[in-house]
């Protein structure tokens, strides 16, 4: 087990200790900054120290500005709250209240008078100026990641640099040329892992621009000589449907965030025969658990008891994980809600099945639908559909999909009056879908609506859900 003092106090400290940073950079489609400058410069006009000891929400339009800010404020702020790019604005007040945010660092100017009320708003940008000398000693900053809630506002998951970096081997072989990239956004757990891998080991990182098309991104990844790249199976399927996929030549491909099926593993192996291909299991709450390197879907049973630093067990068909990479708790203002049980295990909610001496993920215990790595809670979608005046009730469920892993579909029971009206079913389907599109992100909108005469209700009065 790693001892706590092995972990760096802050990102800046780790970068300074990472050795020779010559030639190492962080880049997106517009900017390229050396890691040396990243440690020495400020994206906050040299005012980062004004945020010492504060709870800071990092809300930037692009990833690279977030990266600058995280490097500058880790060890300075008491808390860094990572705002993902697609957080609906209506949830901002709840996030600010839950994380007791004192200050917002942002490059956004599109709020006008709707800007959320906080003590400080500090603009950040791509213009770097020298940092003002050494401030006070670094403190250990809490990192807050947002993950989708059952309905409405996101849940706030508390990590530390130490818990986030538990799976990262620092002091890797010197001289080994590694350039990281990821299809993920670094403001979510999967992307943050890659950002931290690059920063804590002093390696280059190529980020995707906020609106950069996949083909253009792949072109840059190829041009800059990326050696290690991660994404969800859905990201990779899209990449393989681009002629630009032939422009990249990675040594290492990492898949996570979704179940990796045999088809995508085989496709990647056939397209990149020289690359090592791994699929990893991690979650925002449980942290990084393990990676599978044998090219087959699922994972060998030996993973459960032979993974260093991570204890795993299967209980009630789901995978439970205990390690120093687990998140601390959920945060809600003064109150903290436990993520771990009394024994310190996190229930991932991911259901496991044993087939021919190998474990396979088969779905979520809570019915959460994973659409290309993004979570959809059926209850949220049902809540919207049920607001339609002609809907009696609905059941939102998963439909397996070969492009995005899964899609959302809805079974809908109409009110008696509507049924007898014998109105155009297709038109009503379109109307319900339009209703969903108006309030839900596109990946949450059902791909199909089926009208059914009834839905099964359990004795508890709840809808019967079949999740696997």
């Amino acid at each position: 087990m790693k001892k706590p003092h092995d972990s760096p106090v802050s990102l800046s400290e780790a970068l300074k200790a990472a050795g020779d940073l010559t030639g190492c950079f962080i880049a997106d489609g517009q900017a390229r900054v050396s890691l040396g400058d990243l440690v020495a410069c400020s994206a906050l006009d040299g005012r980062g120290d004004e945020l010492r000891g504060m709870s800071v929400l990092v809300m930037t339009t692009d990833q690279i500005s977030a990266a600058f800010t995280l490097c500058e404020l880790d060890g300075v702020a008491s808390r860094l709250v990572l705002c993902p790019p697609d957080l609906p604005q209506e949830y901002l007040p709840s996030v600010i209240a839950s994380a007791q945010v004192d200050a917002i660092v942002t490059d956004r100017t599109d709020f006008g008078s709707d800007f959320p009320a906080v003590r400080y708003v500090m603009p950040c940008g791509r213009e770097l100026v020298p940092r003002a000398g050494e401030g006070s000693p670094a403190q250990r900053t809490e990192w807050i990641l947002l993950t989708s809630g059952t309905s409405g506002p996101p849940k706030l998951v508390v990590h530390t640099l130490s818990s986030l970096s538990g799976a990262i081997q620092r002091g890797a072989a010197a001289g080994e040329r590694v350039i990281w990239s990821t299809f993920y956004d670094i403001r979510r757990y999967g992307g943050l892992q890659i950002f931290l891998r690059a920063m804590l080991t002093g390696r280059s990182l190529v980020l995707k621009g906020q609106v950069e098309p996949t083909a253009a991104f792949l072109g840059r990844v190829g041009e800059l000589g990326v050696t290690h790249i991660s994404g969800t199976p859905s990201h990779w399927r899209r990449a393989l449907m681009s002629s630009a996929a032939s422009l990249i030549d990675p040594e290492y491909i990492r898949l996570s965030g979704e179940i990796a099926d045999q088809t995508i593993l085989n496709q990647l192996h056939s397209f990149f025969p020289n690359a090592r291909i791994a699929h990893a299991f991690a979650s925002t709450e449980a942290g990084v658990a393990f990676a599978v390197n044998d090219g087959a879907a699922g994972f060998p049973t030996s993973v459960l008891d032979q993974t260093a630093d991570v204890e795993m067990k299967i209980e009630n068909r789901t995978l439970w994980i205990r390690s120093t990479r687990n998140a601390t708790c959920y945060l809600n203002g003064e109150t903290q809600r436990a993520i771990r049980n009394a024994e310190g295990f996190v229930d991932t909610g991911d259901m496991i099945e044993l087939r021919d001496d190998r474990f396979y993920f088969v779905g979520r215990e809570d019915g959460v639908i994973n659409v290309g790595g993004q979570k959809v809670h059926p209850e949220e979608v049902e809540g919207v559909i049920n607001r339609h005046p002609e809907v009696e009730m609905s059941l939102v469920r998963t439909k397996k999909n070969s492009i995005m892993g899964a899609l959302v579909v809805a079974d809908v029971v109409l009110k008696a009056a509507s049924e007898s009206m014998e109105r155009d079913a297709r038109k009503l389907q379109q109307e319900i879908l339009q209703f969903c599109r108006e309030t839900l992100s596109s990946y949450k909108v059902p791909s199909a609506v089926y009208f059914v005469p009834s839905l099964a209700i359990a004795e508890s009065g709840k809808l019967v859900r079949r999740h696997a």
Partner: protein
Amino acid sequence: MTVRSEIVEQFTQVALEQDMQLAPLTDNLELLESGLDSLCFAVVVARLESLLGVDPFSVSEDARFPVTFGEFVKFYEEATR
């Protein structure tokens, strides 16, 4: 309806529903240039599965994924043969 016309109809329909600007569907058009994102493709593939009874993306463990619209049509034509 031919496989091709069914595919054209689904591309058009999904683009309309998702409010996407669809490029003219010529055989040389790269799928990633068509104006549809991954989610749109996922919906197209799901609907084609219920219409044509096949999902070549779920069975092609060795064949390369199609890159152009023409290859996409061929992918389905071969799978339905």
